[in-house]
């Protein structure tokens, strides 16, 4: 078959698919109320286990209808179609009520994509159908009280005892952990080798004996953040994702999926084709300042930046299509969000002026600008700080030399000891 014919088939197939999806959606899902905002104010939208159970039911319906995991291979519960089919379904599903798993919607997706690249067949057959059916929501057990940006410096350890692995340590900043079913957990399996070479990924059931999950109250009032304590948690080789001690390669894949997907979506980013930042225009009107030249400059500044971010995302996708997945290139998207989102939140504050810092008791709409302002720093810190993105771009894209390293060429146990002695070091 010629390339053109093949393309034709895919095109026809997509149109047929679209018609099928449209009919199915109409028959099986509820329509969303007109103009119901798709983006929720983060921190004002606390998920409960009961609420999530309802969302799982909708996901189950989509799975049973054959519209979950469209690009996932059939053996793992998917449909074996393409990313284009996924995009078509998403487009068609816009007017309908689809499951809202909060922060875990994206996390689970990133975890699943990573598993598809690194987990063994049995693991995928066990977990992916359940993920696609909404029975397994996954949280990331990455950061620790002593390891954030330095992800390869995690200290939670797994020790082999016969056929079992015993996990001990603690994790933190795991958003949505309290309603997750599994944690994708990075641990140290060998401290006698340099830090990047002794890491392994495990699937940790959140209900396993020895796992304690606690919520952390955040500055926006929510307690979506969690910390976990792992005390003698027993797992087996079946729970390992990727190679034992080969976890760093898996981490790289995951970070690309995370950054490629457009970051942490902490703040509303209007589609620029709707005209200048509608949320900020509304804010200016409320404050009666839409004719103020200074305020107009702020609105247009945000609009121009929104457009630039939007087009950057498209450019990154094109670059990756032509020269492959690249963590350095993906870092551009994350850095753009991490620098422009806090700026945008601050512009909103300046537009609203004094009306943004006080509101009537309990007035959710009135506190939006202030809460977005507090949330503004989420994208510059969460999921890889701006500084980490700058290192990635500087070294991987621009080819600048690395900093001298104090931790990559010696066993991790020595790294920990030397760091402890750093303050008394005299050079």
């Amino acid at each position, binding site marked *: 078959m010629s390339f053109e014919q093949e393309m034709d088939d895919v095109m026809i197939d997509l149109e047929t698919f679209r018609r099928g999806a449209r009919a199915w959606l109409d028959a099986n899902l509820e329509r969303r109320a007109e103009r119901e905002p798709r983006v929720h104010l983060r921190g004002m939208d606390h998920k409960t286990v009961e609420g999530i159970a309802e969302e799982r039911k909708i996901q189950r319906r989509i799975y049973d209808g054959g519209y979950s995991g469209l690009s996932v291979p059939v053996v793992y519960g998917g449909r074996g179609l393409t990313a284009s089919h996924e995009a078509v379904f998403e487009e068609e599903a816009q007017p309908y009520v689809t499951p809202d798993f909060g922060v875990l919607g994206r996390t689970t997706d990133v975890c699943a994509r990573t598993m598809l690249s690194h987990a063994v067949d049995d693991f995928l057959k066990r977990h992916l159908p359940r993920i696609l059916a909404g029975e397994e929501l996954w949280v990331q057990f990455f950061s620790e009280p002593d390891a954030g940006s330095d992800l390869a410096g995690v200290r939670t350890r797994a020790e082999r005892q016969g056929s079992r692995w015993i996990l001990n340590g603690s994790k933190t900043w795991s958003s949505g952990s309290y309603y997750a079913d599994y944690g994708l957990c990075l641990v140290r399996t060998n401290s006698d080798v340099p830090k990047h070479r002794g890491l392994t990924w495990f699937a940790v059931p959140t209900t396993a004996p020895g796992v304690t999950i606690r919520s952390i109250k955040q500055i926006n009032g929510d307690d979506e953040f969690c910390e976990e304590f792992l005390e003698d948690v027993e797992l087996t080789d079946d729970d390992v994702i990727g190679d034992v001690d080969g976890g760093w390669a898996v981490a790289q894949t995951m970070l690309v999926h995370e950054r490629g997907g457009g970051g942490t979506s902490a703040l509303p980013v209007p589609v620029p*084709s709707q*005209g*200048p930042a509608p949320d900020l*225009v509304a804010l200016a009107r409320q404050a009666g300042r*839409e004719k103020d*030249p200074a305020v*107009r*400059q702020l*609105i*247009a*500044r945000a*609009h*121009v*930046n929104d*457009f*630039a*971010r939007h*087009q*950057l995302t*498209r*450019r990154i996708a*094109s*670059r990756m299509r*032509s020269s492959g997945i690249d963590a350095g290139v993906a870092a*551009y998207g994350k*850095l*753009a969000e991490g*620098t422009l989102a806090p700026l945008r939140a601050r512009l909103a504050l300046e537009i609203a002026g004094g009306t943004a810092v006080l509101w009537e008791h309990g007035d959710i709409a009135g506190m939006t600008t202030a809460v977005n302002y507090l949330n503004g720093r989420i994208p510059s810190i969460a999921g890889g700080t701006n*500084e980490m*993105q*700058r*290192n990635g*771009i*500087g*070294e991987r*894209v*621009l*080819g*600048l*030399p*690395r*900093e*001298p390293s104090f931790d990559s060429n010696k066993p991790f146990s020595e790294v920990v000891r030397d760091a402890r002695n750093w303050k008394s070091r005299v050079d």
Partner: protein
Amino acid sequence: MDVDLIDDQILLRDTTTRFIEMTCPLATVKELADGKGQLDSNYLRQAAALGWFAMLVPEELGGGNVSGNGVLDAAVIAYARGAKLQPGSFIGTNVLAMTLALEGSPDQQGAVLPSLLEGRASATWAATGPTGVGEPTAGVRADRRRNGYVLLGSKSLVQDASSAGWLLVTTLAEEGPTQFLVPAETPGMAVIGRDGLDLTRSFFDVVFDEVELPSSALVGRPGAATATIDRQLAVTCVLSAAESVGAMDRDLALAVQYAKDRTAFGRPIGSFQAIKHLLADTSLLLEMSKAVTFAAATAVGSEAEGGTEMASIAKAFVGDSGIDLAQSCFQVFGGIGFTWEHDQHLYLRRLTTEAFLFGDPAWHRERLCHLAGL
């Protein structure tokens, strides 16, 4: 300007770059800036032969583009030009060629278009009033008199007005926005050279002291030029942004190379996060500038909805980013960037000047609010 191009556009870009290397490399640009040397007299004609002035003119009038989107093709050329800080009124000549193709009388098309397309004459667009910012009609009034018009007032920031064969003059007549095709050396029109920040190009004030023009100098119908002016401005913004993106790309490449080569405290300065992070942020500005310019060129060239807005977005974003980029590269170069001999200041001067041509970033931001009905 480097992804999502078709093969013919890549060929166009690379041919343009090779032509520039042969006829007017940066060394020549610097000689010209120092008032030494002269531009090869065949430069314009050879450039024209490569299609520099043909992209916005349909084939039946002697033009032609390579991809079907002439604005994007012209932007590809502008990008290659900007990288090597090329002289000459590329934008003005293209804008007049486009407008004559759209609105020109058969006489104008017959007499002027071929000379522009073949590089025998260049043109410039007098679109800025004496205050340096504002509507393209600002500064010059056109009064009806006998069988023609009289132009009164002045324009500023007119590139290469002394060497251009033709000026496209945008005015306000009683009927509304009206444009004229004015030949060089028209009586009553004074072209006054200005010294300026940019050493690679020449800018002029043009004073119209009761300049009498026949009706045949009108481009399009009197008072009905608004849509054409908008189109001219959109194309100008895109090509201006594309030239700047070319210059930004080159300046950053020089700074990155310097950060790898220069050592201090026993290591390349680019290994210090203070430098590395500055360059990473700067490179993000460049990536976004490329993305925005590509989108605007694609939309304006295909006359897609929102093209006008995207052109102003590109002009505002690239204007600011170009200055930021040149400043940051300057900081990386340190003292050497403050020397006349180094190329850095030429990029700084060019990018900064470009931001203020055809509406500065703040003017385009206000225009965006206005266009949105705010």
